[in-house]
């Protein structure tokens, strides 16, 4: 469906403005620097781009205009006619045609010049070609100046047209000038149409909206119409005629029997008859306004209008009669009905509106049902009727096809409660309760918990006994307290109807499993007994492990003398310790003696051989192992000799004495917290924040 967004048409620039826009855009959006010495291909490409861009921009602008303005042939006939009446159809089409022609001219022109530019042999020639192309485009556009100014005016006027939806439910108010059309409009919608006591106050169509039967309706107020031939009507009248001719709507034809509008009753009726061709297939309601004034010919008015009504019935009856009638025009006109009304006193206004709406609605529904779309839906519909429904009842049109089923007992109970009155005093209540206890089956009266609560002191004092209502297999279980948790389990998670069987199955399974396990266990125990280590071997293993641990700790000492553990002595230093250890290992005393002697003698020989050996050592060092000699190689690694190194190490050790291991690794650049417990954070009252955080 075509949508009419006449309000959203973009502004149409003047011819001069359009040229300015395009030229400046071309300048801005394309490259601007070109030199003679550039490759000719590049120069051609530069100017071709400019021409192409200018053409494209002109094309876009003109296409936009053509797209925005509605095509007279394509839109709804109501709008087409309205455009014709207001702006002259020919002029409108001509203007748009000019624009369209200019567009194609510009396209062809640019094509031609691009072809020429391809053969441009110098910068100057290319430039001249470009100039000529753009200049010619501008000339074409300049010739559109009058079309543009006309279209701009049309655009401005169109934007102010009421937005009428030609397919919507619609009421059209028509009649002679000054009969009260606009005041009726103001009464039934929220539109604020100007109302003045002179003819032709309303000069164009006005639209108002209202709600009726939860539907949206649009009401169109038309300018007054005079009774004259169509050719002589002016623009204002023609608008009304257009609306009447093309919109499928209910027509409210206003008459003023009091003749205060300045036109006689005969004139008004003549108009009604002359407009008849426009009323085909539309419900027409004749509204006699101004009942507040005296009607001189009230009798005649009623007669004539009733005649019109009868006319309709006759028409329904026989068609042939109608043709033979003399006064065809008068006879052909049919109206749905006529109403009296006064917009001044506001009497009968709503009745008029409702009648008009109802007629239009029924007509629309009828036409829809007759249409092909409705047929396709109706073919698929099937209304199912329950088997139990009485055929007669259905024909009578009763809405409730099925009666609700109410059991006998419920009926009785309902009746009983209606006859009984509510309890109010406590004594009555108790008496009732006693009765209930004695013969609970016989008493029909239901004592509500609410009543009981009221009788025993109200909410907060009396609490209802809900357990009473529990529904259980055994009545005596009602007040049981159900344990929920046992040994870290939820009891409800274990509840199962066949718990006994499942438990029995489990126990069976367990017995079978146990038997299996016993056999396996015996075998395993035998195997284990074979593999187990005896006491002595275990002790030896223990000693090996201890030794290994000591070695590992000793190794760390050799790597980092400062961080060494003083307590570890994997390798004894002194010969006594050596001997002790070897003795512990079970070495023969005599063999031990001989071995140590041998080692010492070997060492003394080597010492003699190397006469440059270091100065005398302390007595304790003299007996130490040959490992000592290995460290001699240290001389020369930044030290003059071994003693110097020894001294340095001693001093280093002394310097770090009393400093914890962790602190030894610290450097000057490391972060330090000088005061870990600052007083200002930890002392005093706590007002803001916590101990940790303030």
């Amino acid at each position, binding site marked *: 469906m075509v949508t009419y967004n006449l309000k959203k048409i973009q502004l149409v620039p003047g011819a001069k403005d359009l040229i300015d826009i395009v030229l400046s855009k071309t300048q801005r959006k394309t490259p601007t620097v070109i030199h003679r010495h550039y490759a000719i291909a590049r120069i051609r490409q530069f100017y071709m781009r400019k021409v192409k861009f200018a053409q494209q921009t002109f094309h876009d602008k003109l296409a936009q205009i053509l797209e925005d303005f509605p095509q007279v042939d394509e839109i709804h006939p109501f709008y087409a006619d309205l455009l014709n009446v207001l702006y002259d159809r020919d002029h409108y089409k001509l203007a748009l045609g000019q624009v369209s022609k200019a567009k194609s001219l510009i396209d062809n022109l640019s094509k031609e010049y691009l072809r020429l530019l391809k053969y441009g042999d110098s910068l100057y020639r290319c430039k001249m070609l470009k100039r000529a192309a753009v200049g010619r485009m501008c000339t074409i556009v300049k010739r559109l100046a009058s079309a543009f100014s006309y279209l701009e005016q049309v655009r401005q006027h169109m934007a102010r047209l009421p937005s009428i939806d030609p397919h919507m439910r619609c009421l059209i108010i028509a009649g002679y000038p000054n009969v009260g059309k606009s005041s009726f409009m103001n009464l039934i919608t929220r539109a604020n149409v100007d109302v003045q006591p002179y003819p032709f106050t309303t000069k164009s169509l006005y639209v108002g909206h209202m709600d009726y039967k939860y539907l949206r309706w649009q009401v169109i107020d038309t300018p007054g119409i005079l009774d004259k031939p169509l050719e002589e009507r002016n623009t204002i009248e023609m608008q009304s005629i257009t609306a009447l001719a093309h919109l499928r709507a209910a027509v409210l034809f206003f008459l003023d029997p009091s003749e205060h509008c300045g036109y006689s009753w005969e004139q008004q009726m003549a108009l009604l008859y002359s407009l008849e061709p426009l009323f085909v297939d539309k419900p027409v309601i004749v509204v006699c306004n101004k009942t507040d004034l005296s009607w001189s010919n009230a009798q005649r008015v009623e007669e004539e209008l009733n005649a019109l009504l009868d006319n309709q019935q006759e028409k329904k009856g026989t068609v042939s009669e109608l043709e033979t009638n003399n006064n065809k025009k008068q006879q052909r006109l049919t109206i749905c009905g006529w109403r009296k009304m006064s917009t001044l006193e506001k009497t009968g206004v709503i009745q008029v509106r409702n009648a008009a709406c109802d007629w239009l609605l029924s007509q629309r529904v009828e036409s829809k049902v007759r249409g092909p779309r409705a047929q396709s839906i109706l073919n698929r519909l099937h209304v199912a009727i329950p088997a139990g429904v009485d055929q007669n009842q259905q024909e009578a049109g009763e809405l409730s096809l099925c009666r609700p089923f109410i059991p006998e007992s419920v009926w009785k109970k309902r009746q009983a409660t209606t006859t009984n009155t509510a309890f109010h005093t406590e004594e009555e209540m108790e008496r009732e309760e006693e009765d209930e206890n004695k013969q609970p089956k016989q008493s029909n009266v239901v004592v509500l918990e609410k009543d009981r609560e009221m009788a025993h002191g109200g909410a907060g004092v009396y609490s209802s006994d809900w357990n009473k209502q529990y529904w259980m297999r*055994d009545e005596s*279980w009602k007040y049981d307290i159900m344990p929920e948790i046992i040994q870290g*389990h939820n009891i409800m998670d274990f509840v199962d109807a066949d718990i006994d069987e499942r438990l029995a199955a489990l126990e069976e399974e367990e017995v079978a499993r146990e038997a299996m396990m016993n056999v396996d266990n015996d075998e395993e125990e035998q195997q284990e007994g074979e*593999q187990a280590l005896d006491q002595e071997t275990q002790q030896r293993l223990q000693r090996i492990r201890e030794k290994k641990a000591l070695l590992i700790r000793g190794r760390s000492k050799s790597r980092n003398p400062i961080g060494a553990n003083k307590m570890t002595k994997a390798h004894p230093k002194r010969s006594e310790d050596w001997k002790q250890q070897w003795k512990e290992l079970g*070495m023969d005393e005599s063999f031990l003696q001989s071995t140590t002697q041998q080692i010492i003698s070997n060492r003394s020989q080597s010492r003699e051989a190397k006469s440059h050996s270091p100065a005398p050592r302390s007595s304790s060092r003299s007996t130490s192992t040959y490992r000592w000699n290995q460290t001699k190689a240290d001389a020369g690694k930044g030290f003059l000799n071994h003693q110097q190194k020894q001294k340095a190490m001693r001093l280093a050790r002394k310097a770090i004495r009393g400093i914890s291991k962790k602190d030894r690794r610290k450097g000057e650049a490391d972060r330090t917290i000088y005061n870990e417990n600052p007083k200002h954070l930890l002392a005093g009252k706590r007002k803001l924040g916590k101990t940790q955080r303030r």
Partner: protein
Amino acid sequence: MRLEKCYICSSTVYPGHGIQFIRNDAKVFRFCRSKCRKTFHMKRNPRYLKWTKAYRKSHGKEMAVDSTFEFERKRQRIERYDRELVGKTIQAIQKVDAVRTKREKEYYKNRMKQAKKQSQKTAVRELEKGISLIEPDILRVNQAVKAKDAVQQSVAMLDEDRQANDS
């Protein structure tokens, strides 16, 4: 009122303990303590944390599949109270518990079998390889020499005896 399981460590959360987190898709997560809650919010997977039940079960440290577990399951449908049934259930719970603990113990024992074998193996190897640490080679050489001497002596004595006999 019911006992819930911690989402992270699967420990039992008694009423009034722990905290629960309800995500905006209405899934409820219960935590037994702040450690578990923090772990959850750090998006850690309980399967990869060694201290959780989920880890232990998925890595075969604890019994994960057993018929005793089938007795306990959360019901979506509410059962009507039945005194006899509840009584039977309470007794059943204790029996099932006993069976379960027994099986768990056996499971542990079975699991440890392999480790025991392994430790024995290493012990033997350690003894073979590390014997020099407590009984140095020199000592064993000494003993071997002694033995050799003794043998040589006895051989010599035998030879002497033989010569004496011959003569």
